[in-house]
């Protein structure tokens, strides 16, 4: 006899997560409308200017927010599975570490941290080993993409070392035709 009670209780209570989504959509609608209100019209006789579409989008977003509120009360949103948050935090932390390090430490070290923390988040791995392999793989990737495919990837100490090593090895080959003349 407890079950129908719980059922009824659940029915009466709105889906809070869905209400948060609705609030987010409404906030987004207000933001878009506020931004559009600052825009000037595109000339005197343009009846449709840069602000027209943003206003239309804002109205639709507000409509969707209302629709989401109705769905929240009617429990139209599917059930969510239980989420395991520590792995998510490891990966987000990895992305933040990469962001913080990339300017100063270069691509390999920064991406090595991302690599190691992602691996740690997805399963039981040794962090130092993952960090070392991450930095080595990233350095290899950096070399292929930055040196051979000429992509602009930020360089740090490991990259400078790699470039110098590469120059040192290839120097004799480059010097050979020059010395012949």
């Amino acid at each position, binding site marked *: 006899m407890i079950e129908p009670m719980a059922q009824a209780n659940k029915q009466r209570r709105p889906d809070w997560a869905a209400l948060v989504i609705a609030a987010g959509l409404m906030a987004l609608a207000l933001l878009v409308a506020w931004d559009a209100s600052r825009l000037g019209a595109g000339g005197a006789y343009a009846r449709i200017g840069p602000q027209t579409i943003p206003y239309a989008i804002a109205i639709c977003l507000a409509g969707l927010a209302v629709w989401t509120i109705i769905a929240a009360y009617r429990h139209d949103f*599917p059930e969510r599975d239980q989420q395991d948050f520590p792995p998510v935090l490891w990966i*987000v932390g990895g992305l933040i570490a990469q962001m913080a390090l990339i300017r100063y430490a270069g691509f390999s070290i920064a991406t090595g941290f991302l690599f190691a923390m992602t691996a740690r988040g997805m399963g039981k791995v040794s962090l130092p080993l993952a960090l070392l392999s991450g930095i080595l793989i990233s350095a290899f990737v950096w070399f292929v993409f930055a040196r051979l495919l000429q992509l602009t990837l930020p360089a740090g100490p490991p990259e400078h070392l790699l470039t110098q090593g590469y120059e040192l090895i290839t120097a004799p080959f480059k010097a050979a035709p020059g010395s012949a003349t």
Partner: protein
Amino acid sequence: MDTFALLLQGLSVAIQPINLLYALVGVTLGTAVGVLPGIGPATTVALLLPVTYKLDPAGSLIMFAGIYYGGMYGGSTTSILLNTPGESASIVTALEGNKMAKAGRGGPALATAAIGSFVAGLIATIALAFLAPWVVKFALAFGPREYFALMVLAFVTVSAAFGDSALRGLTSLFIGLTLGIIGIDLQTGQARLSFGIPDLLDGVEVTTLAVAMFAIGETLFVAAQGKRAPETVEPVRGSLWMSAKDWARSWKPWLRGTVIGFPIGAMPAGGAEIGTFFSYAAEKKLSKHPEEFGHGAIEGVAGPEAANNASAAGTLVPLLTLGLPTSATAAIMLAGFQQYGLQPGPLLFTSNPQLVWGLIASLLIANLMLIVLNLPLIGLWVKLLTIPKPWLYAGILLFATLGTIGANPSVFELGMLLAFGLLGYGLRLFHFPIAPVVVGLILGPMAEQQLRRALAISQGDVLVLFTSPISATLLALAALALIVPLILRARGKGQVLAAVAADND
């Protein structure tokens, strides 16, 4: 020139050694990402866009198309052997394919999937070649209002017509449209939704959004599921060859799958997965062995696998002839064209026939390469499935950020990558579809452009949208595609639509 002459001319472009190499790289990468869970063709093309910036346009586009086709082949392997679809167009394949693998018939299942993909790819690519010039002729009559109406139709079909909820589909679409207005308005030079941040003036990069939504969002989502249901790879036992009976039971589903998949891909109706569901349903109905369905019926693998390849070819029809992407992968391929200053559409067929026909012809070659890659080398791809999850996803994120850093090495861009990645995770958590966000971002600004052009011509008269028969018809279709599913769902007949949910690629 007739289509045959153009196609032959295209072949002469496609068999240049460098283009063959691009095609080979494309199909190999495509098969690999199709096999790997958590990364699909859309993500891969997005990752490669910044890397290929300095390469030859024709070669890169040939490679992208190869990735798209390859993804359709590779996805079946994961579905059959792991019961985890490598990409969304292979979900149905898992139903029967994995049962076959468990019963020791993994070899014939893989074979019928690969040969079916080949047959469908071949027929559908030829259909693409013959249909494209016809659509181009038709599209030359299109003005801004017709294009706008066409895009509205694409918005509705991609977001609201299929899937389990019009509300969530439309919400995803409008998130994409909102992201699309960020940046400088091209007609008046005013900054919109930029809040004085210089990094936002150029708008949100499609590649950043796609990589974040698909690669990072998916990684976070998989990580949050923890260690549920350990995955076991079914070993391929016995012969890869199909028996005479397998052939007899497969060839009709292949052809039916092609006939179902191609038009669905070609209409602005969303990705390759929708055709696979229809094909599965058709095979189940027509089969002489309906009792085998659910226990490993070969028709249930042959039909949907043919349908998803035919859809992939079909998707290229609106993309090449109208510049209209109807799936996430097509949307990113459109970004690929734009990266080289090319705008797909009727004009591209006259201004750059070498490129268009070279691309179409290379698809025929890619298809040949794929059957070789996928049948004899199947063991190699199965090995990919044994990469431990931590290393696999660590590698995926490494390459995901590589593309963004390569395109724009700024901390701000990486911050957007993280923010959109979290958004992608949140959308997955609440069962919002992802593709409409990407399609909205790329198609939204184009639709706005066309609407403003149409209204500038008519001096602001909105009625002009309904006075052209073509645009009125398209808008009416869009309204129907929005309203009919709503009524169906309200009357409790939504399961059919939920079953054909268009999701990732």
